[in-house]
């Protein structure tokens, strides 16, 4: 019963990992393709649900391991750290702020502005989202891609190292870019130009500003709208609380779209997602079979030959790898050991049988 519950939970976790990867992909794609806010809200809510699920999964696994005195073992050797980085920071820094903005930020800019400093939240979210790519490792952890434990461990190690280094490098560089005051780049120059333009705003040059700032959505003075790029129905369909920011200057309130920023970020995220997906695919589909063919398979065949008296299959030696240490050993096995084994087997008195004592376990048990 306990085994069934465990396998049900494991199955649930694997399903959730597959679904969260799909959700991650579509969340970014929805931004790039400019899907309706209602669809994006469903995706964001699903993202929060997954983060909550994986955080609970991590906490359950961690505290179960701690209760058995295996906390460190779980975190370090059973890759609990991947479970941690792919859940807790995402819940805290990514999906919780998004959910608060979506459901408690209100539909007015004033409400949203009152809850968060929007840019800071957007930056934190942007950085944290990268950690979601570590979830590919979670599913990799579950795939039994080869029968050899050695191959599993080696392929898993190289995949984990490559993906972790890639994700953490992206994460660290993003963090540094957001926090260290480097010399102004394109974005900073754009922000400065925007500040100047907004500072010089008066109602007479509104059409110049409309062209100069494609992100300008609405201008208000004393809660009265004096300019709006789109009608209210458009805003309701395509804009969510996280899609714009708010700025005050000279008694005017400016609502500026964050969509261009989000699209750039989503494009980058999709590129990273595809990069990491391809890395995992290459390790699974190319490196893992390569490792099996050149290392674990010949070792497995030789082990069986040494262990099982009736096993006399030779190792196939591919011409390309014939000088590898493993295949040089295999050549000795084929040319020296197997012939000697055959001589010993045919000439010797030592019996061998493919039957084991397990064969009788049932009738011996019946008769106990």
């Amino acid at each position, binding site marked *: 019963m306990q085994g069934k519950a465990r396998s049900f939970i494991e199955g649930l976790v694997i399903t959730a990992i597959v679904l969260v990867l799909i959700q991650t992909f579509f969340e970014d794609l929805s931004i790039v393709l400019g899907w309706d806010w209602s669809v994006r809200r469903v995706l964001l809510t699903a993202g929060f649900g997954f983060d909550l699920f994986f955080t609970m999964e991590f906490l359950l696994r961690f505290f179960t391991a701690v209760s058995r005195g295996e906390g460190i073992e779980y975190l370090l050797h059973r890759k609990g750290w991947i479970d941690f980085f792919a859940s807790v920071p995402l819940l805290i820094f990514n999906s919780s702020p998004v959910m608060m903005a979506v459901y408690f930020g209100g539909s007015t800019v004033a409400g949203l502005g009152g809850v968060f400093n929007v840019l800071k939240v957007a930056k934190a979210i942007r950085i944290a989202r990268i950690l979601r790519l570590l979830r590919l490792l979670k599913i990799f952890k579950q795939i039994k891609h080869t029968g050899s434990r050695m191959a599993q461990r080696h392929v898993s190690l190289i995949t984990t190292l490559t993906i972790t280094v890639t994700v953490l490098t992206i994460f660290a560089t993003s963090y540094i870019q957001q926090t260290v005051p480097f010399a102004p780049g394109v974005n900073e120059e754009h922000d400065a130009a925007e500040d100047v333009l907004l500072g010089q705003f008066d109602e007479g040059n509104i059409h110049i500003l409309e062209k100069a700032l494609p992100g300008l959505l609405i201008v208000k003075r004393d809660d009265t709208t004096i300019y709006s790029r789109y009608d209210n129905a458009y805003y309701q369909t395509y804009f969510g609380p996280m899609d714009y920011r708010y700025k005050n200057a000279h008694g005017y309130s400016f609502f500026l779209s964050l969509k261009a920023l989000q699209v750039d970020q989503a494009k980058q995220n999709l590129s990273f997602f595809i990069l990491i997906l391809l890395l995992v695919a290459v390790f699974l589909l190319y490196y893992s079979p390569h490792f099996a063919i050149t290392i674990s398979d010949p070792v*497995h065949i030789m082990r069986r030959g040494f262990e099982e008296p009736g096993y006399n*299959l030779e190792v196939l030696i591919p011409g390309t790898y014939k000088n590898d240490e493993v295949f040089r050993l295999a050549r000795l096995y084929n040319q020296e050991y197997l012939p000697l084994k*055959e001589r010993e087997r045919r000439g010797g008195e030592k019996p061998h049988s493919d*039957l084991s004592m397990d064969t009788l376990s049932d009738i011996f048990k019946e008769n106990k």
Partner: protein
Amino acid sequence: MSAEIEKAKGFVRHLLDNPALRNRTALQKEEQIISFLDINERQLYPTLTSEQFFPGSSWKEIRGLIIGELLKITDESFQAYLRRFVLEQLDLGFIAFLGVKKPPLEDMKTNLLHLTAQVAHKAAGRRALTGSFNALAYRLSEKYIESIFSSRNYIRFEIEKVQRLRMSKEEVKNLVKASLLIAPAVYLLSPDKSGSNNTKTRGTIERRAALSVIDTLLTHLPNYPREVLKSGVESNLSFLDYSDLLTTSRITTLFSHLAYDYKPDMLVDRGASSPEKSWFNVARKNYRYFGYDIKMVDELYKIAAENGW
């Protein structure tokens, strides 16, 4: 006593039903079970002397009882197969091509069956019969001789030009099958396989002994041409010692040795050679030791490799 026999029979049946022995021939199963008993004597004895099995018996008695029942069961199936094979499948028509006019084929088949039954009553003969029997059951002569005749290489040349067999490939196949059945007769008629230590270790005999076996066999198999008996008996000689061995003798040796431990349902691990290709390649390294004809082994190795056997 009958209760003990029933227990022994049940025990044997249980072992015979083991999936590890599925698709093996009766003699292979028998050998596997005997080896199993000998290897696991220490573990089996305490349980088999419990109240439920054979209390108070010595290991020798228990082993004798179990093996006795095993041999009975094996004999039933082995003899039935052999009878069916010899009477229905083996075509002795090739004898007409060896200078015997109007051979009494039915009598010859009965004599052959009688001979193999006698051989099977001796432990060493039974072991030797395993390779021959397996080679027949797994139809080795069918598939290899078919391939040999589809090319014009060494073995075909040896059959047609050296041994001068003026017969079709079907007749050659049947000659090899008859050779396989006659070959273990050396254990019936020359139990010690007299010879030097070297030949004993390799399982070969010397020509002097072979000639004596052939002479004796002429009384057991009166209508068989000497060449057929020679083909079977001399398969126990080393080609390295006697380079004039008949081609069919050399083929018989290789087939019975290959088939001895043959596992038809063996799963080939990824990265491993196929079973028969592996066996022939090992045989290439061991040809001096076992007295094989290296050119013949090379050709059979290529056939196995080309066909993925």
